[in-house]
């Protein structure tokens, strides 16, 4: 079947990169996929600039800091289809567990109470944490949700092949919260 190639961009925001590992866990299907998609921007490839137009954007992780938000907005702007990949992206998952505590308390716990050497709050070179962690759709519109921690390679495969074939992806049979 002669389907057009898709350009794909991926990024992880506040996540553990497990969803990206899952993407790489496709075994021989990865070769098949590489013949049909071009990864144009991703932590997995060298390209470091998000092209003007991308067919599919895969976002892992939740939005927890200023950089996450900026990147999510850029993905929304440049990607035709935006996919929320994994539990952190669709419901906040582990990163959002800090929402039960005030941000100041979270920072103090991480950088003062549990630190023996030079306890201090990081100020330079790191993006500012936002008060609350939100899933991707808490800030930008999302087209496809893929729950799972991580979503299985099969789930990601199904989503990508559906998009390649112009169908609406529905991975609900093969993945779920927690997966």
């Amino acid at each position: 079947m002669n389907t057009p190639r898709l350009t794909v961009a991926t990024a992880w925001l506040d996540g553990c990169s497990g969803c990206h590992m899952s993407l790489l866990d496709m075994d021989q299907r990865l070769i098949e996929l590489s013949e049909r998609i071009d990864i144009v921007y991703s932590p997995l490839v060298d390209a470091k600039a998000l092209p003007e137009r991308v067919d599919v954007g895969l976002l892992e992780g939740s939005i927890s800091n200023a950089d996450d938000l900026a990147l999510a907005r850029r993905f929304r702007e440049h990607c035709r289809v935006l996919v929320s990949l994994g539990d952190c992206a669709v419901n906040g998952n582990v990163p959002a567990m800090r929402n039960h505590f005030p941000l100041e308390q979270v920072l103090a716990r991480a950088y003062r109470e549990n630190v023996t050497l030079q306890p201090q709050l990081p100020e330079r070179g790191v993006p500012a944490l936002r008060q609350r962690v939100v899933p991707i759709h808490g800030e930008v519109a999302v087209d496809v949700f893929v729950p799972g921690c991580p979503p299985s390679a099969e789930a990601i495969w199904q989503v990508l092949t559906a998009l390649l074939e112009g169908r609406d992806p529905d991975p609900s049979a093969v993945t779920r919260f927690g997966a």
Partner: protein
Amino acid sequence: MPGPASQPKVRVVTFRVDDQDLSAREDETLIEVCREHRIPIPSLCYLEGLSVWGGCRLCMVEIVGQPRLAAACSTRVIEGMEVRTDTERLRRYRRILVELLFAERAHVCSVCVSNGHCELQTLAQRCGVDHMRMPRRPVSYPVDSSHEMFRLDHDRCILCTRCVRVCDEIEGAHTWDVMGRGSDCRVITDMAQPWAESETCTSCGKCVQVCPTGALVKQGTSVGEMVKDQHFLPILARRRQPR
């Protein structure tokens, strides 16, 4: 298997469920009949062998000609009734009810010992809940790990009261009950003291087995290891019926 005709007075009625013609005794509820005929009706509070609670509202069905929805767990079959269990409207409502439950407490499946064996998680998948539109209620509860064998995590509790009912109706201890009101409700042992200090708990573990989520679990289980076994319940319920 029905015994010798011990209930001769009960009539048998016929009715339709999703275009299937069915018959049942008139004292049976819709959910009993549907489960018997493998017509899926979601529910989190209903459990065969325990009294009907009617709290989760997931088993709501449409009855043709009746303006209000009916909860299948607390609706008896009626001659000639026509029931729809899987309409677009019901699917939408169930999806929102599951979403509401997820938003009420910190249900984080990925780090839960019941991951993969949780009725709430399974239901979310079946109902098509693939993301959360509502913010989590910003309240968190302590975990009670005082009991030597079991653990209670309120953040996973959906207040279905299966533990309360099994403890009262089957074990007869009535260690569990619910305190407070509204979203502040919490299941408690005795006077809301640590479980290990309960004077009435027999440590029988029935509450753990009937709990649909990871709220009540065995100590020492790690993520995904907590598998529950409820086969004892209908057997015990029958044995304990007055004969």
